[in-house]
């Protein structure tokens, strides 16, 4: 089961079993955003509080496989308290980590993404790198990050309006 050990690193199983930042935030002031993985029905729900360009609080709900839920938990821990710009850099870096394989699977053009990885500390998140060997699961890992991106875009649009 060596391939499996790569996919299911201990730290991933830990986040899966004991997810960080589970819960809800009052909406508003928090912003609510949801995402689905159409393949497997995984669901990520994100409550996002953004103030003065900082992600002041994050809570998560939803259900899904170990990869999607661990990724959600790790994401919430990584961005909570961070400036929005840092969170966006993390999104880009994480997607770059996943994208070499994802682009092959979905047929998107390959572009050089290494720039997105430079200077960003992924920390625990790097444990998710084993996912790229299992192309179908990449969507499980990226779901939370797509939801975060959508949430940040929407709060930015709101604060402009």
């Amino acid at each position, binding site marked *: 089961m060596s*391939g499996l050990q790569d996919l299911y690193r201990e730290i991933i*199983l830990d986040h899966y*079993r004991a997810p960080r930042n589970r819960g809800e935030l009052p909406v508003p002031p928090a912003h609510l955003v949801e995402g689905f993985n159409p393949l*497997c*029905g995984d*669901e990520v729900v994100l409550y996002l509080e953004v103030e003065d360009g900082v992600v002041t609080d994050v809570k998560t709900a939803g259900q*899904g*496989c170990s990869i999607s839920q661990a990724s959600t938990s790790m994401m919430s821990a990584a961005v909570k308290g961070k400036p929005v710009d840092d969170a966006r850099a993390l999104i880009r870096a994480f997607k770059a980590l996943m994208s070499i394989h994802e682009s092959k699977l979905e047929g998107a053009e390959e572009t050089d993404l290494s720039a997105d990885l430079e200077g960003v500390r992924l920390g625990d998140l790097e444990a998710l790198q084993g996912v790229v060997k*299992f192309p179908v*699961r990449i969507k499980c890992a990226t779901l939370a990050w797509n939801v975060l991106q959508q949430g940040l875009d929407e709060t930015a649009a709101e604060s402009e309006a």
Partner: protein
Amino acid sequence: MMSATTSTLDVARIQADFPILARTVNGKRLVYLDSASSAQKPEAVLAAMDRIYRESYANVHRGVYTIAEEATAAFEAARTKVARFIGATDSREIVFTRNATEAINLVAYSWARANLREGDVIVLSHLEHHANVVPWHILRQERGVEIRWIPITADQRLDLDGLDDLLDGAKLLAITAMSNVTGTIVDVAGLAARARAAGAHVLVDGCQAVPQMPVDVHAWDADFVAFSSHKLLGPAGIGALWARAELLEAMPPFMGGGEMIRDVTTEGFLPNDIPWKFEAGTPAIAEAVGMGAAVDYLQAIGMDTVRAHERALTQYALDALADRFGDRLTVYGPAGADDRGGVISFLFDEIHAHDVSQVVDEEGVCVRAGHHCAKPLMRQLGVPATTRASFGVYNDRADADALVEALAKAEAFFAI
């Protein structure tokens, strides 16, 4: 192959007909348990398609030269085979489509748009596959029809207590003959009789039933039956709509183009006869021939034998799962195999369906995890996904045993 009167299948012999079963995954033999999603293909089907390309390939219905005649004859012979396979007596009643999904959309775009108006009622059930849900949602958005849902019981049968109320004033009952999630076999003939009494037309999603049991569209007394080749041991890329000739005659065309016309001017067009009226453009030629070869193969086994095999193997697997995992594993659907096809959906209390599927793949066991294109049903079950094992004619008890062993490994892997 077995004769139609034999009731047990010589699975070892059958397996030898399926080239892919010789392959290994992670050093383990391939245990393919996802036939409800798409079935593997026997040599006879692959050979029939290959032969067309190597010997008689040409566009159909268009050339007078020899190979065009041969291709056309093979294509239309396949239509006749498919018609007979489901008990249709008129092969003009078989419209070749890409898949069952297109067959249902054809009915939604052509028949329903011509016959249903705002407020008209369509009755579906909570067991339906998205293919028999979303076309009606699209129609509702466009036309404002009303959709009513037949609820399900705790063991995922149809709950028919309120059926007459649901059917009251309905124009269409669109129902699966067998759930692709729980295997639940639906009493189509009984439901169709009640739908007819209420004045409704009847569409049957035969995707799972047609490959697994003897089907007679007239015994069902249906108006429309949709099914796909790829679940029937045939190639993907082709499926069929069966519909009563008089309905097809009266329906407006769906897609426009070559083949479906009798005449075209700058001012308009005249449609062709059925079934070609609904087959715009160049069809899936080799695939039709492959589908014909697939029904030949199944008919040589005998659909009674296929059904007996599915039932016996499903019962064996249900028992083996219960023995090994007890309450830790929830198995959905009717309790015994008599009322279900060769499909078993299940869920460990603590392990997500997706993760289970991943771990058992390591053992060469292919099972599907997800919502199985039946999200309304998933919501009824109260889960986002299940793991599903499903059986074909090439599966045997050793495959069910392999599943149980692989699941035990998954359970151990995710144990806290």
